[in-house]
């Protein structure tokens, strides 16, 4: 992570109310959300957000409703103006942009997928997918060719002439994704893109997104309130609570070392064996030679439990691209399956 981040959010504050600027000193002085609401009737939306998002990664911003995650993502393309702070994209501060520059950013650099799909109801699926190109002023023909390509890429061949209301929710969101991809932007903002879908369709869409990402390497900012979804997609996980970042980092790391009771609550409910990977619980090589088997660093723990048949006395050799990188003790694995509590957090590693 030494290279420059694609998107970098610096000291971002957002206060809602009649005179947000004048509230900044109070917030800098440490006034919290409830006090600000009580004494000045202003709502503290976001406070002191600092996040770096690397090119080609999926950054997931997770939080419950009201945590400010949708507000945060709208600051990236300035659908919402911040009260103070910087949003740096490719080295340029978006907040200094003129209207024209901002329009160019939205047309060419950032596309967006919405929770409620937000397709144009009076346009066909194909016209919707061609919309970003048409907005840029490209002719109908090239917009349609491009739209058709992406519709077929998300599995909507044959639906080009349907209207959005004739499609199911999952299919509508595929149109939404095709529309975002048709913009050929480096950055995709996904605002709770799959939250409105049924669980099974949601899994399909997550797989679709990961598959597309393997090929396209976009910088994706994904908002969700669902931890399973966050852990499945995230390269970098940011957890928001009441408008501030509680913890951010690699998802495995957050899972093993939650630094806040709020996150502990979050992570206590998930299937850890499926989410945690060997690399997160292995220990360094120590000259041991007896192994029950060989596993890959990116295998999840569920697979290991299956391999060992539940026997906790075994050790496994961990390999990455064919070279040995560590040992996995089954005992450590079992310990890692128990959610960390603040009191015994040290004992896990």
């Amino acid at each position, binding site marked *: 992570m030494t290279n420059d981040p694609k998107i970098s959010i610096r000291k971002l504050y957002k206060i809602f109310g009649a005179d947000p600027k004048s509230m900044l000193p109070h917030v800098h002085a440490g006034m919290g959300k409830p006090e600000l609401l009580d004494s000045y009737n202003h709502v503290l939306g976001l406070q002191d957000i600092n996040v770096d998002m690397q090119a080609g990664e999926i950054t997931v911003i997770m939080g419950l409703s009201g945590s400010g995650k949708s507000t945060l993502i709208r600051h990236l*393309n300035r*659908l919402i103006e911040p009260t103070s702070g910087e949003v740096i994209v490719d080295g340029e501060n978006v907040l200094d942009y003129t209207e024209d520059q*901002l*329009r*160019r*950013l*939205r*047309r*060419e650099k*950032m*596309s*967006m997928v*919405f929770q*409620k*799909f*937000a*397709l*144009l*109801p*009076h346009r066909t699926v194909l016209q919707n997918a061609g*919309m*970003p190109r048409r*907005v*840029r002023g490209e002719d109908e023909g090239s917009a349609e060719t491009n739209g058709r390509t992406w519709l077929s890429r998300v599995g909507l061949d044959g639906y080009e002439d349907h*209207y*959005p*209301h004739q499609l199911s929710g999952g299919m509508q969101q595929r149109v939404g994704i095709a*529309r975002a991809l048709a*913009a050929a932007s480096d950055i995709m*903002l996904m605002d709770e893109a799959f939250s409105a879908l049924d669980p099974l369709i949601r899994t399909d869409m997550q797989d679709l997104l990961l598959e597309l990402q393997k090929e396209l390497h976009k910088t994706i900012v994904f908002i969700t309130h669902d931890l399973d979804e966050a852990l499945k997609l995230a390269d970098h996980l940011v957890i928001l609570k009441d408008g501030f970042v509680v913890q951010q980092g690699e998802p495995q790391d957050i899972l093993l070392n939650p630094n806040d009771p709020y996150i502990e609550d979050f992570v206590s409910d998930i299937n850890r064996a499926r989410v945690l990977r060997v690399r997160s619980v292995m220990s360094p090589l120590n000259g041991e030679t007896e192994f029950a088997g060989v596993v890959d660093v990116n295998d999840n723990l569920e697979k290991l439990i299956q391999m060992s048949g539940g026997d906790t006395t075994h050790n496994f050799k961990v390999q990455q691209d064919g070279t040995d990188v560590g040992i996995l003790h089954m005992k450590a694995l079992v310990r890692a399956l128990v959610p960390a509590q603040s009191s015994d957090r040290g004992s896990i590693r």
Partner: protein
Amino acid sequence: MATYDWLFSALGLQDWCSENKTDAPMTMAQLLARSGQKGAESGAEAPAVSFWDTPFPSLDELNRSCDAVARTRDMTSWVEQLFLAVKNPLKVVLDPITQPLSWALDGSLWLFQTVPWFVVIPLLLIGVWFATRSIGLIVFVAVSFMFMAFIDHYVPAIQTLSIIFVCTGFSVFLGVPIGILMSRSNALQRFALPVLDMLQTLPTFVYLIPLIFLFSVTESKLYGIAIILYAVVPVIRLTDLGIRLVDQDVIEAADAYGMTDRQKLWGVQIPLAMPNIMAGVNQTIMMSLAMVVIASLVSAPGLGVLVLRGIRNLELGVGLVSGFGIVLLAILLDRVTKASLGRINVTHKR
């Protein structure tokens, strides 16, 4: 002498009253009072007014105590003077602006009456077909027009229809842009809503009074303006409402993909507001029909003239039959616009 003498003496204004004595002509009441008192002693005191009959201190009542106070009829005449004073400059501005309305009304009346009935009726039916694609409605319109032609009401009916077409056209042409501007600016909306309320609640006859002074009764724009002022309100209101009601998520998506305001207006807001705008047009047509009858008082031709004749000459049958003709026109205009509105709604369903 009069009830409020004490007020002026208490304020020490008697001198002012007598100094500024206005030599206004005598009112009819005074004249009658004087002739009634003929023979009686001129300086006789008026009988004491009982407490229960104390009059409200109105202008006329105060004038009886103090001649310097103007009477109510002076006040109305001032209003009249004021209006007459602004009339000419206003006319210099309004006359050229509104002239196209006269041309359009006269042209359309001429056109509808010159083209023979066996061309106009099929053309209307073709128009209905394109708007509604409904065989039933075409039959209904055809039968209605044949019936009116059969009872010799074809010419007034087609005159009424022609006026409605022109006035609705102008209303849409003016109302939709105003509605769009209102939807974009809360300040303008706050200013415009009371004006629209006033236009809608003002008794329809009241429109005619200033217009008669501004334009000559022979000009067709006189009734054109009256109709448009009354009928433009719903299309403005519903355009404003329609655009404000467009799904905010869709607007946000349009913004997120960098649409300009113009692209957003034509590509998203107007198409999505179309059902509401069309509902406004339907209301506008209905209101022009209502006003076109009253406008016959100021020389608007059409079925309204016959209704007026029925009232003036107590020709009951003429009034009722032409009234029925108006109802028939109203029903078919309403059905046709509703049916075309329904077609728009289908493609816009969410």
